[in-house]
């Protein structure tokens, strides 16, 4: 094999890898992203039933019910609309009524969410920037965001 030919193979090999990587990225950005909504946005948009979504907002006061050990239902609100959430599993330490939270799950046919994950972040002043913006719009943002 001449030197030139060997280099040609090398370059082709590199391009192949690059192409493979690119297609992997494109495929996965389509498949593996999760859309994020506030309750109002979710109700406005028509979301298909078996798509994974994230919902952010406040846990509505007096909506939290412990059905049995580690099976809960509560409402998430952005003060315009509420969504009923069903969740069974361990709740994070900082989860409580009136606090900001993000749940990940699927929409069922009654427009409730069956959650697979519940997040409450580590700082009690913590709120994802994207929800903060939304809440500021409807004047829900009282706490100073540190």
């Amino acid at each position, binding site marked *: *094999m001449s*030197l030139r030919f*060997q*280099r040609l*193979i*090398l370059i082709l*090999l*590199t391009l192949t*890898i*690059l192409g*493979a*990587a690119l297609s*992997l*990225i494109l495929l*996965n*950005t389509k*498949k*593996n*992203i*999760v*859309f*994020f*909504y506030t309750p109002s946005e979710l109700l406005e948009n028509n979301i298909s039933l078996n798509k994974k979504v*994230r919902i952010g907002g406040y846990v509505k006061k007096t909506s939290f019910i*412990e059905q*049995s*050990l*580690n099976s809960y239902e509560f409402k998430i609100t952005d003060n315009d609309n509420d969504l009923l959430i069903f969740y069974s599993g*361990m*709740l994070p*330490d*900082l989860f409580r009524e009136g606090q900001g939270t993000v749940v990940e799950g699927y929409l069922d046919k009654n427009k409730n969410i069956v959650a697979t994950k519940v997040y409450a*972040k*580590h*700082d*009690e002043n913590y709120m*994802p*920037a*994207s929800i903060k913006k939304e809440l500021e719009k409807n004047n829900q943002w009282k706490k100073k*965001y*540190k």
Partner: protein
Amino acid sequence: MTSLIGFSALSLSALLSFVILIPNSILKIKVKYFLIICRCSTLLVCASFISLIYAYITSDFSNYNVFQNSHSDKPLIYKITGAWGNHEGSILLWICMISIYGFFYSFLSKALENFKRTVLKIQSGIFIIFALFVIFTSNPFLVNSVYVEEGLGLNPILQDPSLAIHPPMLYLGYVGFSLVFSLAIASLLKDNFDQAWILETRKWSIISWGFLTAGIALGSYWAYYELGWGGWWFWDPVENISLMPWIAGLALVHSLLLVRGEQVIEKWIVFLAILCFSLSILGTFLVRSGILTSVHSFAADASRGLFILLIFFITTGFGFLVFLIKSPTKKNDLQLLLINKTSALIINNILMMIAVLTILLGTIYPIIIEVLTNTRISVGGPYFNSTVLPILLPGFLLMSIAPILSWQTNRIRKFRIYVIFFLILSLLISLQSYLTSFNTWGFIGLLLGTWIILGSLISIILRFKFSPSLNYIKTINSFVAHIGVGIMIIGITYSSIFQKEYIYNMKIGEEVNFENQKLKFNDIKIFEEKNFQSLKAVFSLEKKGRFINYIEPGKNYYPVSKMITTEAGIHHDWLRDIYIVLGSENNNLWFIKVYINPLVSFIWVGVLIMIFSTIIAVLKK
């Protein structure tokens, strides 16, 4: 008082750095005095940081930063570490380290005076930019306008020994790349790419990379036992951005190896050096600006984000501009053959760059989408797992055969022995996977990991005569590092693929059985600690009637910040960890989650081996 001293020292230090920047033609000072000014600047910024620590130790709440982040009840160690447990303090630590790297460089470097001066000037330039950032947007020495008796306390989740040293380690890594950056720019400006420059760049990049490795590992270990999520890596934005300079640094360290084959690719090395530091700053920007939401975002002050973005554009822009204008012109033909060490290294470099790009894309994709379409998305673990891992896979494959490749020819040394061993190994692994539960990724990971270890071992035995001396360790060092990686790959594969999860509702006194083991719920205990209350559930683990260990998962309640933290209870074993998280209670029935994490210890052992071999590599001439 401490605030005043700290702030004056900081300002003076920045001022001295300005003096350094004045061109030689205007300010004619001897190198000796130049170095003295440089070192004084370092000592002053260190004094500034020490005065902040002192304010924390003495709980001086007249300092606003101390008031916001400390409490007089805290144990001493967390008072000290509280100094960098917040945005302002951690950025002060950051600039302190930029200066310290310059300080050590000025002592250790054997470069020509002129070159040394240029490097230190660039380093001071970087220092000044960040010092201005501290002074104008993140001053830790603000004085509290009202008199207060007590502070607000440090976030309890940060009150942890491994997290106490995690930020300094990580920063030593990030910031170390600033010196590598300065070296690269100086070499472009002075058109100096001699052997000494290569060796120095190599030493400093290995040091930075080693610290970065240690920092990431500590953070990951902390996440493992403190978050109570059963895992040690979550593809959180903040983890991703630390991984980017880490991979770029890895590529840099390996490119510098090409020198041994007597071929130098200056262009590529300089490019990587600039890239590493740029990625470090970009990471800081993304986390600190609050644009990306993660557990680590302390600050969401828009002005800060903007300032860091400005710093990013100035440094990166300057770096790449110099790179474009003064790019090394010397033509150096690489000996690219179909399969020799050079081409293997080049392909590995390309793979690493693609991996960096993939991670970067996944991390900033949500921002781009939000700006363009105003919809919000999140990109989680599945994306990274199914893109980054396949991209790195051929890299690991190359790594496993790298030791047997030669520099100049296509010939592979002792080819047959390797093939025979590889076949035997694959057979054994297939058999093992067939007999236990088969999983494609598990099989690939195990085969790659063991093959990297075995291949390196064979190379060590065949090529070097054993002698119990430091020199011997130095010669086999790169193989040792690869063995570390192999062990880590096995650990990662097993702990993520073969993790098992059990859920129980238990009363005190009850027992459960899983995998030949008996777990008994003995008791609930409540302790009163100095600044928190702790609730612990005591479990005893038995195997075949023999007592093994107590496992005590629990929860801590911190009255100052009214926060609860989960403390996972872990029984460490070389082969698997038994990891218990305590959930909520209802009618004396406790919800517990038990994770069986196989071979997690391999990850930490692998990392330790890698760090060990970076230390050896630094010692090596």
